[in-house]
């Protein structure tokens, strides 16, 4: 049977078919998503958008196409999700404007409406990016309109056939227009979604309206309801029927009453127990009704909107990264510095406050990465990190045994997400071995270490693990420490200023270093670390 016009009834089933066909393929479309941001949600967004619009449109009693598309366009606007969803809403806004006054539409009207849709869709962006849904829409609509205009009589089937063929050619060409697609070896995801909708339309014209795949059905059902903010609570309870009720209890009566409150209804009776599951916006009413029949054995009410949002948060974080970095540091300046160097998690700790193995494990569990590098940045913490490594056997964890902050920083700088684990370890190890660390702190008691007699309140200069100088004079300690630490091959001194540093002293140190070590570049970082007013990285 060939048709020359589309009536309201058919148009609605085209929409439903388009929506179902898109929904059945949305996972594949998600997988194509690399532009504008590779977050793999295009299919899902388009599906949610289109099904929101179609749901509104198909609920409409009218069979006037102008009215149907009006409701569709409104529904799409309100339900728009993501970039592709917004574009979709604009296409059908234009479509609506073109067929507004028409009760039924011919092939020419149909193809013209898409041309108008193209116009509107293009107007909403200053610099359209080609190689996307916009390109496929424009090329297929324009050519189809020209094709239809030239024929005397053309059936709807032929029109859609032509449009889909043209759209597919255009879709295949998207990688040639948008380099990122070619690089990854995919076609544009939004455009693929658009083609899926057109294919759904065609299936309806041919008399086989696309049906939702079983696996998608429940998921889709929940999603589209949430879109409309109806039936917001998943309500479940089990009632033990009281003796008086049990004789006259009718499962179908209860079901009928609950059906008025919501949907996704399940009522099951087993002897004196009745289990009820319903999605409703007024869970209280459902519970009141249930209570009339007997006592609750179990109750559960969950906000599906929240769940849904929570779910999307989890999904967003569940994209597995190749690498993640964990560093241990104290002082907000140093912590920020590590973050800047692409460290994902900075565990607070250092001298005198060592993080536990448990701290490492919980940090590791929050990260979702194939390989995790840990920078303990203190010799006392390396062990805890290594324990975490041995406890979590199914996770690839590499502890880079950095003993000081400067070592950790220079190892992090060498991290390269593009190369493999082995090379990273090699580069990072090489980097931190080259760094000498000097630090200055105050002695809290008299002692004799490394052949030095140290009195209480003396300043001590520590080079890597050893106390090398001490003096009651802070500046002298620093100068002597630098003298021992800096050799001729060194070219960079990093000064990390602690929370106890005094500005005037800092200035003095900076001036001294600049004057004395002319061959070295000086880098100053606000570390705000406790205990050590100054830490020097020398390399």
């Amino acid at each position, binding site marked *: 049977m060939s048709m020359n016009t589309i009536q309201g009834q058919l148009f609605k089933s085209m929409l439903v078919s388009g929506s179902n066909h898109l929904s059945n393929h949305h996972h594949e479309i998600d997988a194509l998503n690399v532009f*504008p*941001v590779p*977050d793999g949600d295009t299919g899902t967004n388009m599906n949610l958008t289109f099904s929101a619009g179609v749901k509104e449109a198909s609920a409409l009693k009218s069979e006037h196409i102008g009215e149907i598309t009006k409701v569709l366009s409104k529904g799409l*606007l*309100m339900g*728009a*999700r*993501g*970039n592709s*969803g*917004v*574009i979709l*809403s*604009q296409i059908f*806004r234009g479509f609506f404007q073109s067929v507004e006054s028409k009760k039924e539409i011919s092939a020419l009207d149909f193809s013209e409406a898409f041309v108008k849709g193209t116009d*509107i869709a293009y*107007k*909403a*962006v*200053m*610099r*359209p*990016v080609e190689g996307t849904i916009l390109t496929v829409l424009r090329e297929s609509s324009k050519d189809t309109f020209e094709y239809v205009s030239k024929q005397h009589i053309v059936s709807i089937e032929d029109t859609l056939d032509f449009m889909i063929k043209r759209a597919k050619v255009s879709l295949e060409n998207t990688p040639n227009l948008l380099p990122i697609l070619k690089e990854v070896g995919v076609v544009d995801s939004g455009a693929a979604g658009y083609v899926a909708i057109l294919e759904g339309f065609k299936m309806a014209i041919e008399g086989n309206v696309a049906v939702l795949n079983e696996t998608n059905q429940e998921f889709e059902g929940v999603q589209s309801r949430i879109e409309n903010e109806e039936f917001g609570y998943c309500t479940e309870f089990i009632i033990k029927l009281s003796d008086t009720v049990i004789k006259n209890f009718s499962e179908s009566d209860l079901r009928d009453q609950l059906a008025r409150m919501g949907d996704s209804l399940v009522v099951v009776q087993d002897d004196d127990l009745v289990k009820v599951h319903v999605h409703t916006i007024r869970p209280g009413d459902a519970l009141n009704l249930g209570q009339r029949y007997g006592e609750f054995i179990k109750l559960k009410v969950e906000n599906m909107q929240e769940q849904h949002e929570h779910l999307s948060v989890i999904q967003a974080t569940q994209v597995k990264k190749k690498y993640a970095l964990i560093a241990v540091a104290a002082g907000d300046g140093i912590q*920020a510095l590590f*973050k*800047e160097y692409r460290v994902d998690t900075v565990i607070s700790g250092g001298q005198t406050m060592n993080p536990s193995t448990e701290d490492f494990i919980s940090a590791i569990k929050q990260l979702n990465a194939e390989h995790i590098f840990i920078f303990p940045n203190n010799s006392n913490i390396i062990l805890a990190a290594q324990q975490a490594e041995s406890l979590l056997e199914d996770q690839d964890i590499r502890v880079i045994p950095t003993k000081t902050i400067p070592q950790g920083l220079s190892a992090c700088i060498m991290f390269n997400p593009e190369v493999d684990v082995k090379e990273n370890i090699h580069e990072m190890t090489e980097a931190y071995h080259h760094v000498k660390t000097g630090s200055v702190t105050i002695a809290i008691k008299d002692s004799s270490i490394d052949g030095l007699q140290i009195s209480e309140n003396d300043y001590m200069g520590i080079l890597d693990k050893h106390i090398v100088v001490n003096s009651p004079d802070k500046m002298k300690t620093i100068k002597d420490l630098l003298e021992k630490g800096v050799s001729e091959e060194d070219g960079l001194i990093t000064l990390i200023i602690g929370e106890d540093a005094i500005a005037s002293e800092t200035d003095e140190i900076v001036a001294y270093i600049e004057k004395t070590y002319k061959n070295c570049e000086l880098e100053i970082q606000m570390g705000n670390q406790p205990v050590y007013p100054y830490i020097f990285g020398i390399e």
Partner: protein
Amino acid sequence: MSIDKATEFGNIKISAEAIATLAGGVVTECYGVVGMASQKLLKDGLAELLGKENYSKGIVVRETNKQLEIDLYIIIGFGIKISEVVLEVQKKVKYVLEKTLDTKFKSINIYVQGVRVIS
């Protein structure tokens, strides 16, 4: 204000102006955004629509506590779901800037200065 980096070959400085221009270019490709606007509203409460060469006037790059922030003053087309457009702009700008500059941005703030009817 600028992004400073050092590589083994030398130092790199990327100015706020350069970042703003880059961000401006990205915004023009964002679906639903039909223009950039000035930050200050004119006397009658309307935002000045900026010409192409002035896009960076509608963009402010800031550094607070060593973290980069960017403000974008935009105009959105009528009949488009603003909340989605804004979210997509934030996502895309953040993605492109972080990818091309290899630097983290703490926040991408969007100010919708107007809605324009597109006929």
